[in-house]
């Protein structure tokens, strides 16, 4: 589904991603872990198309489409979804209106007519339940005055509504208490299918107890330095990142 080859990206002339490779197949959940500053959020931003990041090399294909050639909106319409680490508050734009616009813009791109109001409301109801998202919040302005947990839940609600092929969760667990974490993870698990895929970016192993990944990758200095199964996450939890950093740094030195 997603194929990233030798991806290099910088922000304000600082090289962050230095040749990243990743293959994600339909039905899989990949976790990306790594110490602070390793480039995890950069990867999410670059994939979603944030303009302040410059891609200096490599390629990214989503089901055969070259993502890097597409605008952020077209990436979303091709089925990419980024759950933001810091969802934006937009006073004056109602949550529901925003979702309706998004759903219909995506449908228009796929050559479909706007969704019938009844069907849309039905879906809203159903998905709200799925992520235990308060109906009152759905009618409010987008994220305005939401608590941290409500904002994250809103991201998952949007994810449920838009039904993307590939969802990237950028530190969705940060700022969540244990109950909110369980609700969010539960929502994601119900949305998992053989046709979609998830990339879960996180600092901590905690989230991965709820969203069990098929693969775990460790990002360090802009590259994936270790890949494994969920046991790798446990090992990191136990030992921290230092042992890994040391061994990677040693490898680098040896290569020189």
């Amino acid at each position, binding site marked *: 589904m997603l194929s990233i080859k030798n991806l290099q990206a910088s922000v304000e002339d600082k090289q962050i991603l230095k040749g990243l490779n990743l293959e994600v197949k339909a039905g899989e959940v990949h976790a990306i872990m790594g110490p602070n500053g390793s480039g995890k959020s950069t990867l999410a931003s670059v994939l*979603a*198309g*944030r*303009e302040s990041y410059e891609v200096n090399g490599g390629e990214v294909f989503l089901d055969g489409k070259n993502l890097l050639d597409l*605008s*952020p*909106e077209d*990436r*979303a*319409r091709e089925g990419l*979804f*980024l759950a*933001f680490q810091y*969802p*934006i508050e*937009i*006073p*004056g*734009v109602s949550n529901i209106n*925003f979702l309706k*616009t*998004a759903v219909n*813009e*995506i449908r228009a*791109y796929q050559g479909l007519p706007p969704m019938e109001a009844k069907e849309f409301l039905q879906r809203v109801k159903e998905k709200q339940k799925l992520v235990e998202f308060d109906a009152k919040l759905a009618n409010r*302005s987008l994220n305005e005055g939401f608590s941290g947990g409500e904002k994250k839940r809103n991201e998952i609600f*949007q994810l449920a509504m*838009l039904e993307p092929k590939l969802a990237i969760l950028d530190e969705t667990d940060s700022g969540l208490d244990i109950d909110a974490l369980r609700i969010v993870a539960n929502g994601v698990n119900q949305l998992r299918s053989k046709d979609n895929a998830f990339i879960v970016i996180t600092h901590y192993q905690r989230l991965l107890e709820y969203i069990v990944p098929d693969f775990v990758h460790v990002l360090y200095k802009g590259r994936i330095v270790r890949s494994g199964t969920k046991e790798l996450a446990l090992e990191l939890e136990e030992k921290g990142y230092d042992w890994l950093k040391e061994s990677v740094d040693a490898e680098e030195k040896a290569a020189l």
Partner: protein
Amino acid sequence: MITQVSSSLYHQLITTFDDGLVGKDALETIRRNAFLRFKEQGFPSNKQEDWKYTNLSLVLDKSYTLSACSQASLVLDRAEIPGLDTYRLVVVNGKFRADLSDHIVQKGVYICAIEEAYAQPGFHEHFAQYADKTDDAFVALNTALFQSGLFIHVAKNTALDKSIQVIHVSSSVESQFGQTRNLFILEENTEAEIVESFIAQDSESNSLYNNVSELVLSENAKLQHYYLQTGNTSANYINHTEVYQKRHSLYNQYNCTFPGASFVRNTINVRLDDQNVESHLYGITLTAQDQLVDNHTIVDHLKANCESYEWYKNITQDTSTAVFNGKIFVRTDAQKTNAFQQNNNMLIGEKSVIYTKPQLEIFADDVKCSHGCTIGQFDEDALFYLRARGIGEEKARVLMVHAFAFDVTERFSNEFVRHYVDELIEKGLKIT
């Protein structure tokens, strides 16, 4: 002091009056006095604080014809507000056209051309009693030389069964200097909604209108008043609105300006001259290209226990300029005043300009007054957030401008006008 002696329009007007073009009518003394005031003052210059950012020479250093010749056909579609059923009144080049207007049969509502209203009850009691006290040269000029306009009288205990829509059409073949004078009187216990639309027919000409409206709200009168400026580059406007309010009256004004007319100056003064008066001034200004839109407002609290609420939003595109000046007076007698003012600005055009000045002058000691002002740009993070959900950039911008305007548009008392304005915002954003 005459500050604009070089102005060709000034000379033209001085000669006109001396020629006696006006003729003798019932207002002769009032007109003569007003003319002397104008002659003495001359047009203001940008050395005067109230005109500092609005360069009048753009519109005054030109020659105009003083008698308009209307285009053969009139297209009024632009002013149509979908869904809104109104009594339609049409003013062409400043002249009220009863032949194009609906005849209102409702008892208690009287409408006629102002030049035919001199004998009407209330006329002499109110005409030139408010706006002319302001030392405004444009008001004096209008009083001296206006030729037509609209007189609306709503008798005691009357609630209008439909809104009145006044369509001001600029349709001059040549560049015209037009002066419209309006007097709207709402007697005690009345209720009305007046929607004034400004449109201009496509034309090579470049007209200038100096309009003055006086509005009187007697005890317990309620007025919803909309200004919808949707003209084009063939017309420029200097509008003065003077509102005089008595006890328990409510005045709500919604002042909206969209891309089109190159030069728009609105002077809006509201005098709360009795206890328990409530006034709301809302404004949306969306500018484009090299348009200049200037809103100067005064909310004058003269008596105790009144409430005023003012919220203006400016959105500037391209190289346009928006000016906002909001003055609030709280006079010595106006204890327990509650006055609120807010002005938010969004600069979209990198070379667009906004001048804003909130001004509070408070002479009473037991009052609640607040004001705030912000200037910002498009929030790029918000834009990215919307785009990351599949919403196209253009649509995302429209959504964000709607969101910005929402604080004001949500206050609109009439949902048809609100939809219409939302659509004009959308259209106005697409111009660039």
